[in-house]
């Protein structure tokens, strides 16, 4: 949130210890992280996806990154404390060694103590994957792990101390580009398959990017970065131009993406658009008016069930009208339920509101699931056979067509949000967010303003629910779990509270990426959790901050 009113002069600052102790601390933290990474089953799951075909799996890259970052950070600390580069690299190696030692201990425990009854992921498969296929129980594999840890830590340290800044940036960027290109094989592969001459098969294997294209890509990125840095710093005008350019690029990608890629990617894009729609709804509540709403999914459910009841051929349908009739009804009903639910809870503030709305959302889910309402809503059987929308005689069936439907709605909603934000009601929301008491003393009715925010947000969520119902063709209670609300919240926080482009970026990062990395599926919420925490610590304003926040940064 943009306001950080100092409420207390009390502040805790951690004192940095001597470089050696810091390296040990960093190494142990990273080691614990690496062990947890393995023990939650992420290693084995992500080992199935290659970044560079046949050379490095996603899991191996992630584990190596942990050791590299540990080395890099310890070396940077040592550097700051004025240690010689050699000593810094040595300390970095030590930090890496600590990571390796933690993993080695885990391997020993897995093979010798029966910890699998407790920790389900401590399997022989994990040990095999970690020890490069060597036979279990040999002292060689322990040594191998320690050596790999030391080596990676030292490389990280060398990167931090020995390599000149410009080259270091270029290398890091190159590595990231290659990982990106490898991980999102599906997208790039389907784009490349539009090209003639089997280019796609030359670059990509069945699981990741091939080795030589990867090396070429890395070299190209490094060279380009260095050359461009050598050409001098870009002027202020050019950076302004570039941010415009990046918006244009983003919009263009969003528009054509489903056309040039596969149905799978279009399906993912469709989900991203859906979450954008919801994100914009929550953005009114949370981003503008500062209302933490964790029961947001209830309105999504209202929209979806309304369309389901009005457009289904099934036995529960109460009407069989066109989607275009049902959509406004769904939006209005969602807005009305926002008003009804909002009134009791909107008199409380902050954390209280989060919990109260959470309770509301759960009530709706339990009710929908119950036998008591099953004759109307279908209980756990849900409602099936929902008609697809028909536009000018054409039924919108493919993911790409529905994607454009969602995108158009998202565009409309973004426009409405933007207009509201710059009018009397939008200013009232911001004022309430900044200081509710003062806003009220200026004649703003806080409950009324919050109710408007709440029901506008609910209406947008209702629209998303309506699209969701026709996208899936059926609705089930399990689609409306609390997790949906958390997803939307995370999108806003990661993208930047109160920022419309932030919603787009957040939805792409949090919905698009995990969907594209199917192996990632079960770790997605863990990733969300880590991302939320990391974001609050590192970049609280979000990936694409709102104007006012940016202005603030510029002013400061």
């Amino acid at each position: 949130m943009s306001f950080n009113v100092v409420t207390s002069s009390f502040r805790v600052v951690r004192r940095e210890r001597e470089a050696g102790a810091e390296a040990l601390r960093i190494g142990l933290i990273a080691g614990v992280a690496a062990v947890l990474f393995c023990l939650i089953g992420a290693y084995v799951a992500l080992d199935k996806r290659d970044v560079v075909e046949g050379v490095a799996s996603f899991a191996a890259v992630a584990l190596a990154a942990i050791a590299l970052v540990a080395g890099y950070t310890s070396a940077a600390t040592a550097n700051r404390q004025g240690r010689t580069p050699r000593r810094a690299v040595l300390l970095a190696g030590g930090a890496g060694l600590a990571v390796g030692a933690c993993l080695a201990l885990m391997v020993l425990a897995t093979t010798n103590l029966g910890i699998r009854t407790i920790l389900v992921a401590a399997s022989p498969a994990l040990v095999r994957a970690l020890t490069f296929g060597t036979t279990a129980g040999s002292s060689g594999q322990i040594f191998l792990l320690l050596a790999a840890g030391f080596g990676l830590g030292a490389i990280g340290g060398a990167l931090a101390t020995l390599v000149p800044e410009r080259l270091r940036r270029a290398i890091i960027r190159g590595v990231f580009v290659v990982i990106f290109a490898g991980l999102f094989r599906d997208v790039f592969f389907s784009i490349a398959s539009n090209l003639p001459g089997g280019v796609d098969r030359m670059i990509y294997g069945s699981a990741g990017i091939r080795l030589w294209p990867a090396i070429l890509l890395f070299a190209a990125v490094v060279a380009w970065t260095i050359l461009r840095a050598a050409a001098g710093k870009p002027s202020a005008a050019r950076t302004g131009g570039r941010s415009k350019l990046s918006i244009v690029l983003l919009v263009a990608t969003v528009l054509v993406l489903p056309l040039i890629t596969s149905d799978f990617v279009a399906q993912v894009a469709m989900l991203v658009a859906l979450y954008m729609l919801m994100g914009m709804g929550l953005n009114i509540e949370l981003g503008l008016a500062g209302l933490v709403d964790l029961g947001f999914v209830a309105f999504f459910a209202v929209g979806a069930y309304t369309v389901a009841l009005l457009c289904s051929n099934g036995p529960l349908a109460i009407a069989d009208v066109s989607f275009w009739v049902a959509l406004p009804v769904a939006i209005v009903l969602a807005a009305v339920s926002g008003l009804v639910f909002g009134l009791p809870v909107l008199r409380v503030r902050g954390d209280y509101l989060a919990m109260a709305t959470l309770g509301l959302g759960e009530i709706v889910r339990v009710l929908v699931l119950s036998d008591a309402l099953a004759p109307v809503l279908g209980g756990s059987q849900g409602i099936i056979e929902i008609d697809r929308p028909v536009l000018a005689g054409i039924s919108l069936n493919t993911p790409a067509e529905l994607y454009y439907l969602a995108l158009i709605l998202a565009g409309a909603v973004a426009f409405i949000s933007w207009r509201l934000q710059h009018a009397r009601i939008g200013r009232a929301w911001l004022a309430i967010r900044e200081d509710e008491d003062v806003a009220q003393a200026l004649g703003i009715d806080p409950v009324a303003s919050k109710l408007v925010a709440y029901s506008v947000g609910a209406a947008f969520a209702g629209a998303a629910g309506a699209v969701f119902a026709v996208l899936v063709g059926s609705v089930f209670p399990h689609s409306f779990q609390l997790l949906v609300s958390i997803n939307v919240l995370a999108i806003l926080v990661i993208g930047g509270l109160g920022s419309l482009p932030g919603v787009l970026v957040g939805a792409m990062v949090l919905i698009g990426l995990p969907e594209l990395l199917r192996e990632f599926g079960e770790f997605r919420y863990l990733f969300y959790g880590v991302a939320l925490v990391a974001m609050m610590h590192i970049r609280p304003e979000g990936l694409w901050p709102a104007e006012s926040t940016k202005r603030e940064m510029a002013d400061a």
Partner: protein
Amino acid sequence: MPETSLPPPSSAAAPLLEVRGLSKRFGGVAAIRDVDLTVAPGSVHAVIGPNGAGKTSVFNCISSFVQPTSGTIRLDGERIDGLPAHVVARHGVARTYQNVRLFPGMTGLENVLVGAHRTLSVPGWQAVFATPRFRREEAAAREKAMAILEFAGVAHHAGTLARHLAYGDQRRLEIARAVVAGPKLLLLDEPAAGMNPAEGAGLVELIRRIRAELGITVVLIEHHMRVVMAIADRITVIDRGAVLAEGTPAEIQADDSVIAAYLGTRRDTPAEAAAEDASDAGAGAKTGMKAVRA
């Protein structure tokens, strides 16, 4: 002795603000007891008293920040006590705060536009379609806001975030935000606190103009005796939650009980105390309190 620019308003006119028997208890502690306060329309009325005497509590009751335990408050003859704060604001009561409370993440202009909230009426859906009526109203509101910023002398900060303004400018912006909607009554809570003499003089000038040009009645809490004596038509002295004295500045300066309780016994004449710097006056007040309590 500083002169008052207008003669004291005649008591025959119907009062703008009429507080009767106002009490506020927090738990077992009475913050204010049985306070009466009558403010004539078009006047500048000062409320003075030692720290902790309950002055801000009176303001909080009038603006409905807290609900009084008993007593009535009338504005233009109409009861406003116990109403929600925003309803009180719509009746025409605006205020500033002892510790400036702007919207720190909004610009000067945006702060003032929020202040104009209650004067705008075009519904939100018109904003979505940017109807001519909406655009007219919005343009007029911006013009008015800029004019008020100009009036308060902070027009050059229209685009600056409130948190980056200098302290004196924050005070002025807060006053601009309070008066933009054209209230009947403006409550200023220690507007000159923390200001140097030059800034204080500028503030006196601003308050005079608020009364003269905008026609707003002002009630202010102030410790700077120089400011109080310069602009107040009438003064109410509050001590330990109750009204100690009420009258014109001349009467207050001559009042024995005020001299004893508030201005302190170490001074020869109240006029001298008035000429002292505010910090001295504050210190004097404290010694005075001790003397009375001892």
